[in-house]
């Protein structure tokens, strides 16, 4: 057992606070910080004012495959990759920096489609080899896809959106409502 360092503990609490503010679940806090469960629960209650939600984490890798979640996940993961390769950040710090940049792209009034916990799961799926990045042959962008999927001739869901895209209310709120709010004329 290593000796407990007060400075380390302070840093971990600081990290846990940032994670909770962004919407981390308890399981994630336990994995990313070395603090005990009881302290994390107390911290969570103090910051959010409610008990941490119980139940399993969103565990499906297939969630990232439907078109709108795929765009969000790809956006987040590309930013995260930059943070790791160029930004000299590691682990939770890279996650926090990338997630804050991702939030700039979503409507501030509604809940972000890619929740913080899902973003964390996304990275774990990549680390575990369940997901890979596939390059779109049109725009050369790299998109999240299931591992071992054929890479040749892939066209992303932005270059070739599915015919039913933007038909549900949730999708419209991400894709179109903010056109009105900025006042850009919609293309015919």
């Amino acid at each position, binding site marked *: 057992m290593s000796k407990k360092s007060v400075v380390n503990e302070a840093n971990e609490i600081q990290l846990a606070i940032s994670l909770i503010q962004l919407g981390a679940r308890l399981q994630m806090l336990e994995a990313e910080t070395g603090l005990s469960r009881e302290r994390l629960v107390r911290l969570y209650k103090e910051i959010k004012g409610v008990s941490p939600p119980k139940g399993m984490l969103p565990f499906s890798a297939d969630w990232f495959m439907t078109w709108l979640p795929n765009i969000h996940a790809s956006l987040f993961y590309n930013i995260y990759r930059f943070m790791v390769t*160029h930004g000299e950040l590691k682990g939770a710090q890279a996650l926090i920096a990338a997630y804050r940049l991702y939030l700039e792209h979503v409507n501030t009034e509604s809940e972000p489609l890619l929740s913080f916990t899902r973003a964390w799961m996304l990275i774990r799926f990549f680390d575990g080899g369940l997901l890979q990045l596939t390059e779109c042959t049109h725009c050369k962008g790299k998109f999240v896809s299931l591992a071992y999927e054929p890479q040749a001739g892939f066209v992303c869901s932005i270059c070739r959106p599915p015919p039913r895209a933007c038909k549900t209310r949730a999708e419209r709120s991400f894709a179109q409502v903010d056109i009105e709010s900025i006042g850009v004329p919609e293309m015919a």
Partner: protein
Amino acid sequence: MDAQSNLLSEIREVNLSYLLLAQRMLHEDRATAMFRLGFSSEVADIISNLTLAQTVKLASSSTLLCRFRFDEATLLAALNHSALGSAVQRAHTTMLMANQPVEQID
């Protein structure tokens, strides 16, 4: 003031505000600033360690210091008015930007 010197002073102004903005961003949050500016860590170090005198000297060049960061694919994504709306388009541009090579010193 004739047009030529007017132009040069405008270039210097842009250079100086670019450098000062880059420095401020790098001091506030280095990794995020590197993402926004497209800098490698060497360039980020150099820019954030410039003294004020050096910054002014560097800015008083007759050429622009910042580079156009769009390559063909990114530019097309930014200009392409897709049916999906501007938020998707912005997300697409950011995604492609993140994949581009950063500015670095060989």
